[in-house]
């Protein structure tokens, strides 16, 4: 529904792609992207940014406050919180990135096939999507960990499978909307092969919606992975991860919530930024602006 609206309303931008992106994102989207860029840079440059090693313990320096030596203080075993946060950004971002790439690699071809064919192939994809939908992602991940043991690899592959139906549904509905567009008939009459139509035209037109949904998926994958690490089933100690940092329950019960609160704030801000950018890219602004315009027209 919104997919169709977005496809109809969006006019090809005449300006450069960078400015077009800026106007699509709007102010909240631009602020969010800037924040995300900062997090990515921190993750990439982690060793250069922190003089302290994230895994060096020093029991004499546990639970310290903010200082010049330890910007964000230290945790229960005297490890530098800032260093763990910055190094933790690596696992916290790489995991969801792998999940989204895997899920896209499965869902885009399947979704296009399901949208373009009738009969058993479309039916098969739809049934498979329904069945995977019936298993909550976190549960599938826990089951996988039960079988293959804890770790990032099992968690990532399980969540990639679990998120595939979400992306596949978006691809299917967006591609079906494209299929009804006149240009598809025109190209078909000209003898262009369906594969070429899909790859060169349909994929490009549904791109923004799929990228938007993928960004939202990234946010929820980040949350699920962090939740698994929180449960002790994802990233394993002593490796740093935001979910692991939040899980220090003893520190909370001893009234030293510093590390937990800092990591929580970073997780919430990152997810919020991803959700804002995803919603903007996916065309929420277009529909909302369209709705506002409709309302204004009705009033006048």
């Amino acid at each position, binding site marked *: 529904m919104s997919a169709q609206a977005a496809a109809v309303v969006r006019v090809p931008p005449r300006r450069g792609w960078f400015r077009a992106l800026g106007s699509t994102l709007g102010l909240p989207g631009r602020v969010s992207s800037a924040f995300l860029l900062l997090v990515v840079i921190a993750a990439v440059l982690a060793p250069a940014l922190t003089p302290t090693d994230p895994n060096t313990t020093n029991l004499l320096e546990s639970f310290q406050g903010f200082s010049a030596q330890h910007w964000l203080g230290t945790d229960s075993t005297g490890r530098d919180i800032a260093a763990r946060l910055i190094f933790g950004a690596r696992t916290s971002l790489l995991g969801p990135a792998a999940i989204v790439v895997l899920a896209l690699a499965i869902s885009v071809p399947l979704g296009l096939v399901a949208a373009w064919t009738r009969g058993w192939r479309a039916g098969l994809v739809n049934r498979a999507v*329904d*069945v995977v939908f019936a*298993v909550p992602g976190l549960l599938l991940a826990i089951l996988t960990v039960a*079988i293959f043991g804890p770790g990032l690899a099992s968690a990532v592959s399980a969540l990639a499978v679990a998120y595939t139906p979400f992306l596949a549904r978006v691809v299917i509905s967006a591609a079906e909307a494209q299929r009804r567009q006149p240009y598809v008939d025109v190209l078909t009459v000209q003898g262009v092969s369906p594969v070429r139509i899909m790859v060169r035209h349909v994929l490009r037109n549904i791109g923004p919606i799929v990228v938007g949904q993928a960004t939202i998926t990234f946010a929820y994958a980040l949350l699920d992975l962090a939740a698994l690490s929180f449960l002790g*089933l994802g990233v394993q100690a002593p490796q740093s991860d935001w979910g692991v940092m939040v899980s220090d329950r003893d520190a909370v019960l001893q009234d030293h919530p510093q590390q937990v*609160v800092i990591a929580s704030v970073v997780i919430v801000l990152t997810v*919020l930024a991803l959700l804002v950018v995803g919603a903007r890219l996916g065309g929420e602004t277009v529909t909302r602006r369209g709705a506002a315009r409709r309302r204004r027209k009705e009033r006048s």
Partner: protein
Amino acid sequence: MPALVQLLARRLLGLLATLLVASFVVYTSIYLSPGSPESVLFGGRQPSPELLAAARAHLGLDEPFLVRYFHWLREVLGGDLGTSLISQQPVTAKLGHPLEVTVLLVLYAAAIIVVAGLGLGLLSALNPGIVDAGITGLVSVATAVPAFVASSVLISVFAVRLGWFPPFGFGDSVGGHLRALTLPAVSLAIISSGLVARVTRAAALEQNSSEHVRTAVSRGVSRRRIIRTHVLRNAAGPIATVTGLQVAGLLAASVVVEQAFGLGGLGQVLISSVQQKDFPVVQAICLLLVAAFVVLNLTADLIGLLIDPRARKASTA
């Protein structure tokens, strides 16, 4: 209405097929595991071949795979979920109390989601301007606060600093249960409340700007009555569906919260069984949670159809 009955029958058939596939996956998945069930039984010891064969016969592992699956399925349908490999207890007995905890937790969280989600959504839709902007901002942040983050922060503030609620445990009396479940239920409800509030706001705004509401306003119908019979009645379908889907999703999310608060619910038993490789318990809990999730999802869809005749017409046509 035969069309509706037909729709219901089709959805039920789909549900049964989904459950069958899910049960097969859950049953099979255990056999993909590197450690076999009988090796858990013997721990680290090396059994003699005769003992191993006896154990395999006892567990029914000497039969062909499909036979074992149908055997297991028949027992599950008969209410027998097997025996725990670790405690040798029947799984159904082991899961009785945890199930109670999880159901209470999910119901409590569902109540919060309905009240907070509907309330905030309506409040922001009916008060444009600063109230709307404030609530919309709050709701956006809420949709990014996962249960494990919320639980850690809530424990720190309300259990450790203020001491209003216990930091863990399920409590002894009914009042104790409610007190002990408050923080977990709130942690669990935050994301879903935000999503429900967002959908409520959008649906109410859409109705507010529609012609039938404007006609009602010009007829001089009171604001309260317009909201109740024109805005809410028409917006109810999508709101009910989204709320139902969110409540179904709580089942899986409750695993995290139960672990954080040490409530001893299904999720916590699941995690400890995963760590001990107690396969029958893992299978039973996964199957229970998937079944509940699927049934709740279907219920949410059906409630949406029952409330909204237009949706009913669209899906039966």
